[in-house]
């Protein structure tokens, strides 16, 4: 019934999911879980405020992948940040420019930004072709297009949260060149050092996935974050047990994991 080697991953997936749903339930019943400070997320307000003072637009892009890839969870994390960011920009009268590489993302991004304008009763200020831009589906053309936007529009802040690839550094350095403050975030370890080097604040890996819960302070979401910690403890326990047993030359456990 199972594909070869899929029994243990399935059991682990169920265990992680149950721990997340269980802690979500506890959180909804009133238990308060503490989420540690995320300076990169706290800085969002600072970036919007600074752009308002300078009279410059804010640029946001949720990465170079859509909702149809293995990195889609990162894109979703970026969209959670966009929901908050768009609202803040509209409240403070700051222009927001959202770009993407994939055409299928344009309607989704458009709806998220439009919702922020509707919520603040400023729909007349929403400019679809200015606020939401499809740049190019070709990787380096996309990055070049974004760099052009940075220089032409003299952006005040650049937020890049999602799956980013080789062109990360070119975009981040161009934004730094025009004096924009930056928040970067990706779970792709090969590009994280670029973000760390070029951005003022960086969301490292899993921090991205906490953004929605952190910004909304919603007990349901925070419960799931607490569940992630339980899952992490399970993984660390498996690593320690596996290490000890392999030192003792007992292979049964590693064979069990390969089931």
């Amino acid at each position: 019934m199972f594909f070869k080697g899929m029994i243990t991953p399935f059991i682990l997936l169920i265990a992680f999911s149950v721990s997340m749903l269980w802690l979500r339930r506890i959180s909804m019943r009133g238990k308060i879980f503490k989420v540690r400070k995320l300076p990169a997320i706290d800085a969002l307000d600072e970036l919007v405020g600074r752009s308002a003072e300078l009279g410059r637009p804010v640029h946001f892009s949720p990465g170079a992948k859509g909702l149809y890839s293995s990195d889609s969870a990162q894109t979703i994390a970026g969209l959670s940040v966009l929901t908050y960011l768009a609202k803040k920009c509209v409240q403070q009268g700051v222009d927001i420019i959202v770009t993407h590489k994939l055409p299928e993302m344009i309607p989704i991004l458009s709806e998220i930004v439009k919702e922020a304008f509707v919520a603040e009763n400023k729909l007349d200020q929403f400019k679809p072709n200015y606020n939401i831009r499809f740049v190019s589906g070709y990787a380096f053309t996309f990055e070049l297009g974004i760099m052009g936007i940075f220089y032409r529009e003299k952006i005040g802040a650049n937020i890049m949260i999602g799956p980013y690839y080789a062109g990360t550094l070119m975009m981040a350095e161009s934004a730094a060149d025009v004096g924009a403050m930056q928040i970067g975030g990706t779970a792709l370890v090969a590009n994280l050092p670029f973000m760390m080097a070029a951005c003022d604040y960086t969301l490292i890996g899993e921090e991205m996935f906490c953004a929605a819960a952190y910004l909304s302070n919603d007990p349901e979401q925070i419960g799931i974050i607490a569940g992630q910690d339980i899952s992490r403890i399970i993984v660390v326990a498996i690593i320690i047990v596996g290490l000890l047993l392999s030192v003792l030359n007992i292979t049964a456990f590693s064979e069990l994991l390969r089931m």
Partner: protein
Amino acid sequence: MNLDLKKIAVGVVVLTGLIVLADYFFKISLLQSTSIELQRWSAIVSAFMVGTALINMLKGHGGKIFKRSEGWQFSAVLVIMLFTMLIVGLLDWFKVQALPGSFIFGFLFDSILTPSGTAMTSLLAFFIVTAAYRSMRIRNIDSMVFLAVAVLLMMMNAPIFQVIWPSTLSIGEWIIEVPQATGMRGILIGVAIGTIATGVRILIGLEKFYLGRKE
């Protein structure tokens, strides 16, 4: 009958997600065929969105051209190239023998687009230098460690240092294989669990960004 369209949409997402997920674990032919069909539909819907993006681009750049806004010439080049590629691609698709569509299409790709992309990639080296300069200025302990590690790894990759100080190779390899790999794996475990959490949020209907505006 008063249908709640948003609830139906969430239901469709949850059901689709469960079928595709189950297909990853279980060897059931019905599941496999359904999953493949659903993924095919998803690709078709994505393809339709290219039209939406095209309209978005034409509206933005067309507006600039008609208003003669600053840099309108670049927008004109973009629109001309867009239609050139479209027409040449269509000629190729319809197999118009009189015009060598595939040759022109190939030429535009191989002789214009690919070299432009390669030229862009070459810029990366300069951006790495400026980023390295900015991040390696010693401001605190972290940046000091960063600088020390970066210098050691640069020494490892420069053959002259392997002659002057042969230990650079073993130190560099140790940095890559032990602290760097450990940190990277820690991040990857966190990312994997975060991805599962995102999946759980979608499957229980907590993440509803795809539903659009709250009317």
